[in-house]
């Protein structure tokens, strides 16, 4: 039976018992998502540190596999992203871009859209037409730009939920934050991102 049919936790257990191929499967499975997460959390200003953080996260996981065996019900993905997030925060601190832990908690003046929001007029995501593909590509590019403007805690919460598919409980574990705080960070992140995206994409639809 191939390793691709095993869950992350089973593969990690096999790796702890000496199965090198299990680790290779795990790595291939989480290589790109984790790399994206690290890159987006660090932002465009610290792109040069992405590989270092990514590599350190995996090596710490390998070195700390003994503690993984002691955690019976732990999620592998949560653990991996926790290691990567902590390493990324270390880099941000060293670079002077550290943001206080309550940064994403307080209201920084962002207001939610009322009435007809611009994104409600965006084309369907399943559209196959070239113009629609171009739109979503531009939207993605704009979103990355908007993410750079978010505080790290809000950015990380948004990315973990929207890109990596973690639940709120898992996000709370990764960010080492309370559940309500995570919800608040997500709310502020979404408000800011929608405002940022609407301000950029709205003129596009106004021309139509």
């Amino acid at each position: 039976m191939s390793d691709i049919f095993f869950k992350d936790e089973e593969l990690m257990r096999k790796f702890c018992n000496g199965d090198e191929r299990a680790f290779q499967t795990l790595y291939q499975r989480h290589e790109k998502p984790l790399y994206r997460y690290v890159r987006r959390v660090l932002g465009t200003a610290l792109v040069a540190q992405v590989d270092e953080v990514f590599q350190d996260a995996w090596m710490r996981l390998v070195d700390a596999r003994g503690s993984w065996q002691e955690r019976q019900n732990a999620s592998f993905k949560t653990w991996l992203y926790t290691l990567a997030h902590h390493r990324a925060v270390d880099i941000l601190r060293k670079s002077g871009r550290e943001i206080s832990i309550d940064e994403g908690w307080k209201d920084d003046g962002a207001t939610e859209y009322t009435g007809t929001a611009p994104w409600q007029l965006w084309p369907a995501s399943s559209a196959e037409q070239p113009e629609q593909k171009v739109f979503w590509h531009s939207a993605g590019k704009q979103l990355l730009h908007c993410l750079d403007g978010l505080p790290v805690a809000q950015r990380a919460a948004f990315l973990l939920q929207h890109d990596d598919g973690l639940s709120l409980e898992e996000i709370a574990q990764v960010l080492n934050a309370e559940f309500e705080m995570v919800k608040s960070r997500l709310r502020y992140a979404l408000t800011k991102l929608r405002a940022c995206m609407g301000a950029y994409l709205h003129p596009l639809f106004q021309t139509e």
Partner: protein
Amino acid sequence: MSLPDKHLQQALQHAPDRELAPNEITRKAVLDHAAMALLQRKSRWLQRCQHILTLEYWHIPRWQLAGMGSTIAILLVVAVFWDEHVAELRTGKFNGEPIQVASAPTESLQQNADGLAGRAKDEKTQPVSKPMRVENPTNSRIIAANESSDNSSVQNKAALNTKSTELGLERNETQQTTAPVIITADKFVVASAPEAVVDQNVGSSIDASVGLKQRLPSIGVDALAPTDKAVAVNNIGERSDRLGNAEVDKDISAKKLALTSENRSEAKVKIKKDVSSSVGTIVNSNMAQNNAMKSGVALANKDIQAGILRILTHGKPTVTSVPLIDAVTGYRIQIIEGSDVSTLLPDEVEAYNQVMQDYYARSSRLN
């Protein structure tokens, strides 16, 4: 608010960094690190196994290990050489070859006695430097048993009793002493008649007091001529004084009282008879000696050809942690017999060692 925004999620999926991946160096570093970690895990198990196999795991100090090792080595050496020694005694072989002994005498004891009486007369004043030779190996064993104070040799005692009866020797058990007296290159009078003076070298490890006591009654001081009797008694008295044997002194005193009533002619007959029965056990045979020496020379040549260089000796086994080395030749000294040896063995060993020493001298000159 906790549900993901589908539009923003869709925008993320179409972001330009969607297919970004770490470079190959980073990927290889991570995978190599994982592989190395597993190897170290295996090696840790190996190291633990090796650690268990080493004595450090058992917390034994090094000095105790050294002591244990030395003790085991000594026991091993003793066991090896002890086995060789016992095997040679049991099989009667020396280095795989049977020990050569002289054949039993074919001449009558009377003839031997006459011949030896003449020889004794001639050699009376000459110092004796060689050990006593016995032609008959059985007799030699008896003498060794008689003269040895080793009470542990039950086998020799049995042979002693049997052979003593055959030869007409009266062995008085009550006269045995436990105090060993070593006589080396010494003379003592067996009988007082001039022809009965026999030189004897009892050897380096023979208890002469026992032999002396055993001969006193059988030699028959009573049968000697009055003048000869006086000489014999005086000689024996001196000897007994030296030996410190009170019982012998007592016996001598009794014999002195009996001297005056003895007949001279009867004494001569008894002298011949007693001396012949006594000297039959101490005959020195040149033939047996030569055979033993030839055997030693042959064995030495054979060992030299085989590359075995050693010096032979006999005596009390020595237990040492280092091998005995001959000071002259530097060859290893091998103990092949104990103290209770055949009288032919010293000749054989002497000849053997002489050949080895000659070989060493030749080798030294060549080098």
